C-alpha cells in the first residue's frame, strides 16, 4: 500500500450519503481546481487549486482568539453591524494559526492535501450501503480530471474493491486524460451547461469545443453516460439552450439520459465565506 500513500491530491469535501450524484447511496469526493470559472458555481471553493481560508460567519462567536494568534495581523475584529471577524486576504499567508485556535470551526482551510489511502479509507466506510443500494463513489469537484493521477488512483483502488465508480466532469480536458481513467469509471456524469459557444465563453471563461468533442468521443465508446444541465435562471434555462443541448445529446445517442439540476439558492453563502463577489442574483 506504500505506493498509494505517496500520491496526494487536494480535496475540499467528502460527502457521505450523497443521493443525487449517480445511482444508489454514494460517497462524493470533491476535488479542488477547475479549468472553468462558471459565474454560478455552487462550490466556489473548488475552483482554485489554492487552499484558502474559509470563514463561516454563522459559526463565529467573535471571541477574537484568531486575531491574537495571527503572526501577520491579517485578521481584525469589526463591530458593525454586529461583532465579526474580517480577513485581510492580501496579508494572509495561510499558515493556519487561526484555524488551529478557532474554537467553533468558523475558520477553516477550504481544502486539504490528502493521500489516496486516506480518501479510500473514508470511501470504504460505507461499502455496506453501496452494496444494498447499488451505489458507490462519485468523484466531483471542482473538476476531478484536473488532478488526473490522483483521481485515477482513487478510482483504481475502488474498482479493486468492486465499488461502483462515477465521475462528474465538465470534460474540459485532454482526450488522453479521459482514455487514461476510462477503464476505472463505470459512469460518466457530464455537465454541458451552455450549448452556444460564445455564451459558454462569456459565463464559464472557456470555449465548449473541447467539451463537445470529448462528449462525442465518450458517447461513441459506449460508456455509461448521464448528461446534466444546470438550470440557471436567465442564462441556461432558455428554451433555446435546452433544445440545443437535448438535440445534441440525442444525436449522439438517444438513450443518454439528461438531468436538469436546479439552482441551489444557498450558493451565495459559499461566496461570502471566501470574501469573493457573487455575480448572480
Amino acid at each position: 500500500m506504500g505506493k498509494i500513500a505517496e500520491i496526494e491530491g487536494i480535496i475540499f469535501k467528502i460527502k457521505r450519503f450523497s443521493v443525487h450524484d449517480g445511482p444508489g447511496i454514494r460517497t462524493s469526493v470533491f476535488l479542488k481546481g477547475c479549468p472553468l470559472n462558471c459565474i454560478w458555481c455552487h462550490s466556489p471553493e473548488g475552483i482554485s487549486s489554492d487552499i484558502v481560508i474559509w470563514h463561516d460567519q454563522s459559526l463565529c462567536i467573535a471571541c477574537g482568539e484568531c486575531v491574537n494568534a495571527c503572526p501577520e495581523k491579517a485578521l481584525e475584529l469589526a463591530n458593525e453591524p454586529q461583532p465579526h471577524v474580517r480577513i485581510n486576504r492580501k496579508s494572509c499567508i495561510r499558515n493556519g494559526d487561526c484555524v488551529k485556535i478557532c474554537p467553533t470551526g468558523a475558520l477553516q482551510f477550504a481544502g486539504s492535501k490528502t493521500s489516496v489511502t486516506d480518501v479510500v479509507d473514508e470511501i470504504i466506510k460505507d461499502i455496506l450501503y453501496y452494496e444494498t443500494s447499488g451505489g458507490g463513489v462519485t468523484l466531483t469537484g471542482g473538476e476531478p480530471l484536473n488532478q488526473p493521477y490522483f483521481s485515477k488512483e482513487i478510482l483504481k483502488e475502488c474498482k479493486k474493491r468492486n465499488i461502483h465508480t462515477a465521475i462528474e466532469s465538465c470534460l474540459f480536458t485532454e482526450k488522453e486524460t479521459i482514455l487514461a481513467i476510462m477503464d476505472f469509471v463505470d459512469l460518466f456524469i457530464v455537465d454541458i451547461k451552455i450549448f452556444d459557444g460564445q455564451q459558454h465563453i462569456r459565463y464559464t471563461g472557456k470555449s465548449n469545443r473541447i467539451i463537445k468533442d470529448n462528449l462525442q468521443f465518450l458517447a461513441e465508446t459506449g460508456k455509461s453516460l448521464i448528461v446534466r444541465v444546470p438550470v440557471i435562471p436567465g442564462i441556461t434555462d432558455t428554451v433555446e439552450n435546452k433544445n440545443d443541448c437535448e438535440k445534441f445529446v440525442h444525436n449522439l445517442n438517444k438513450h443518454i439520459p439528461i438531468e436538469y439540476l436546479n439552482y441551489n439558492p444557498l450558493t451565495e453563502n459559499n461566496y461570502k465565506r471566501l470574501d469573493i463577489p457573487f455575480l448572480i442574483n
Partner: protein
Amino acid sequence: MISDIQNPEPTSRILSLKNKTLSPVRYLSLEQAKIITRIYQENEHLPVNLKRAKALAASLSEMPITIDPEELIVGNRTPDSRAGVVFPEAGINWLLKEIDTLPDRPQDRFNVRQEDAIYFRENIEPFWRGKTLEDDIYNLFGEEISEIGKVVKINQTDHAQGHICPNVEDWLKYGPAGLLKTARERLKSASDIRKTFYESVCITLEASCRFIQRYSLLASDIAKNHDDISIRKNLREIAAVCKNLSVKPPESFREALQSVWFLFVILHMESNGSSFSPGRMDQYAYPFYENDIKSGTIDRNIAIELLDALFIKFNQIVYMRNANSAKYFAGFPIGFNVTVGGQKKNGQDATNELSYLILKTQDHIRLPQPNLTARLHKKSPPEFISECSRVIGLGNGMPQIVNDESIIPALKNAGIHTDDCTDYALVGCVELSTQGNYLGWSDAAMFNLVKVLELTLNDGICLLTGRQIGPRTGTLSSYNDFADLEKAYGTQVDYFTEKMIKACEAVENCHQAHLPSPFLSSVVDDCISNGKDVTAGGAKYNMAGIQAIQVANIADSLAVLRKLVFEDKFIMKETLLDALRTNFEGKETLRQSCIHKVPKFGNDVAWVDELGSKWITYFADRLRLYKNFRGGVYHMGLYTVSAHVPMGQNVGATPDGRLAGTPLADGGMSPMFGRDKHGPTAVLNSVSRIPSHLASNGTLLNMKFLPSFFKDPRDREKFTSLLKSFVCLPVNHVQFNVVTAQELLNAKADPETHRGLTIRVAGYTAYFTELAGDLQDEIIKRTTHGENS
C-alpha cells in the same frame, strides 16, 4: 402480493369514528376508584389477590358501558373516551397534591369535575391513606430512593407493572370461557397455598365472560330503538359477536379482532400498568383472516375497515400519570405495540397479507396508537421493506423498524430459548419481549451514567446542589491520567448500581404484596401451571430492565477529557473543572473548543464511539452480577423515552460542552442533537459500535428526514436501501421523523392549526402540540437528513 392490494380511502364510518375519538375533552374518571374502594372496605379480611379479583369483577359488572352505533369494534373501560382513570391501590398521594393542577399542568392535562375532586378528597383518599403500594415503598425505602434520585430514577413506584405481551394466541384459541375451565380444573387439585391464586383467576375470568355479555345485551337493546336498517344490522352483528365471545372462542376475523380488544380493555381495568401490547397481530390473526377470505365471508376492504376500527379503539384508553412522570413520558403514551413482519420459528419469513393490510391501516388512521413496529431481517421481502418506507414517508413516525438479525442474538444472550427469541415482539415503546410468557419489568430504573461522570470529576459532589452524594474518589485535578479517571468512574458506577438494585428489590417486594394480577396471570405462561401470580414470579421469563443513560454524552465527554485534557493538554484540568463548576460562565471560547475540537459520537469516528461502547459494556456486565427479586436476570436497555429532558435537568455542565440542566442526547442511541455532521450512514456506523447484543431490554435510535426525500420514488428507493443496510448492522432499532424544522416551528407558534401533527418523541408517537415547550425545542434541534447540500 402488495401490488394487488388496493388502497381505498378510509370509509366515512371510520372517518367519523376517528373524529369522535379525538374531539372529546379528557376528564378524570373516579367511577372505578369508587368500586375498588367499596370492595376493599367490604373485604378487608381477605387475601390481597382475592380483593383484587373481586374489585376487577365488580368493575366489570358495574362500570357503565356505552356503544356508539357506528362502531364495528366495541368496548372501553370508561363511558367517556380517553378518561384518566384513578386506581387507588397503586398510589394516589400525587393526585391529592395535583388534582387541582391537572387541568392546567404543562404536560398531559385532564379536566376534573368539581364533585369528583370533592368526593376524592373526602371519601377515597382518606380510606387509602397509608395503605397503597406507593405508601409502602415510601415508608420502607423512600429515603434510600431519594438519596440516589439524582443518579437513578426508580420506576413502578405508584402504578402496576405493564409492558407485557399477553398470550393473545391462547386467548383467541380458548377464550375467557376456555381459560376459566382450565383454571377451575387446576383449582380442584390445588394445594392450599395455590388455592387462592386459582380462585382469584376464576373470579376474574367469570367476570370477563359477563362483561362481554353485557355488550351483547346493550347492542341488542340499542338496536331495538334504531330505525336505520344498516345501523340496526351492525348492532345486531355486535350483539351476536359479543354473545359468542362470552361463551366460546372467536371463529371469524371480526370476532378475533373484537376478542383482542376485550382482552386489552380488561387488562387495563385490572391494573393501571401502561403498555400491555398486542404483539404479532399479523401472525395470530392471520388464520381467522385466511378462513374468512377463503370462505368469501369478508373481502380485503371489509378486513381493512375492521382493522381501522380496532386501531381507533387503541386511542380511546390513555394513561394519566403524575406531573413528573408525564415529563418523562410525555403525550400519555400507553404503548399498544403492534408488531408485523419478522420471521417464523423456523427462521423463514413470516410476512403475510395481513402484515401489508396492517401497514395500510396505519396509512389510514395515523393516530398515536397503536405503536406500530415492523420486524425486518435478511429474508424480508423487498416489497415489504418498500411498503414500510412508503408508510414512514407519510410522516407520523411509524412503523418503527427493528432488526431480527441483531435482536434475536441479544435475547439468546439474555438466556431466552431460541423458539421464544424468534417469536419476540415489542411492548410499549421499544422494549423487547417474548410473546405470552415474559414479565419484562422493563422500566425498573434509569441509570444516569452522565451524572455519575459529573460526580467522578467532582469528588462525589453534585454540581447542582453542592451535596455529597457519591463516594469521594477525587476530582478531575487529582487524576494523573485518563486511566486514573476511568478507575474512579468505575468505582462511582459500582456504588450507585449496588444501591439501585436494593431499591428495585424493595419495589418488587411491595408489588407482590399490593398488586397481584390474577387476570393478567391467566394470559401469561406459566402462571397457571405454576399456580403463581405473575408478580410473584409465575412467568416463564422473569426479567428486569435497567436503562443506561446516555451513551452519546458519555462518549463525547470522555473524548474531550482524553484528547483535549490528558493527551493534548490543550485544556488544563483545573480550567475545565472550574468551567464545569461555573457552568462555563464567561468561558464560551472554552466551551466551543469542547464542542468542536474533538470529534463526537455519531460521526463514525471509531475511538470516540468505543469510549461509549466500553462504558456501556461495563455497566451491562455489572448488572449481570445480580439476580432480580423474581429470580430472573437484570439486563440493560438503551432508551430514554422522553426522559433525556428531565434527566438532563439533573446534570450539571459536562465536558462535551453541554450546559447545566439542558437535555441529554435523545432516544438512547442517538448522537447529541446537531453534533452528527456526516449523514445517516455515519450515524448508523457509530451506533453499530455500541454493543446492542447486551441491550436485550431494547434500544432506541431516532433519525429525522426531510419530507422532500420521500416525494421522488428514486429517493424513496434509496431510503429502502438504507433499511436493508440497517438489517446488516448490529443495531436493534431505528425510527424516523419525516418533517421539516420549519413545520415544527410553525406548529409551536400556532398550535391551533397544527393539532393533527404527530411526531415521534421516543419509542412512541404523540401530538406535537401536546408536548411541553422544552421537549418541542429539543425535537426541533435534532439533525435532519436528506438535504441536498
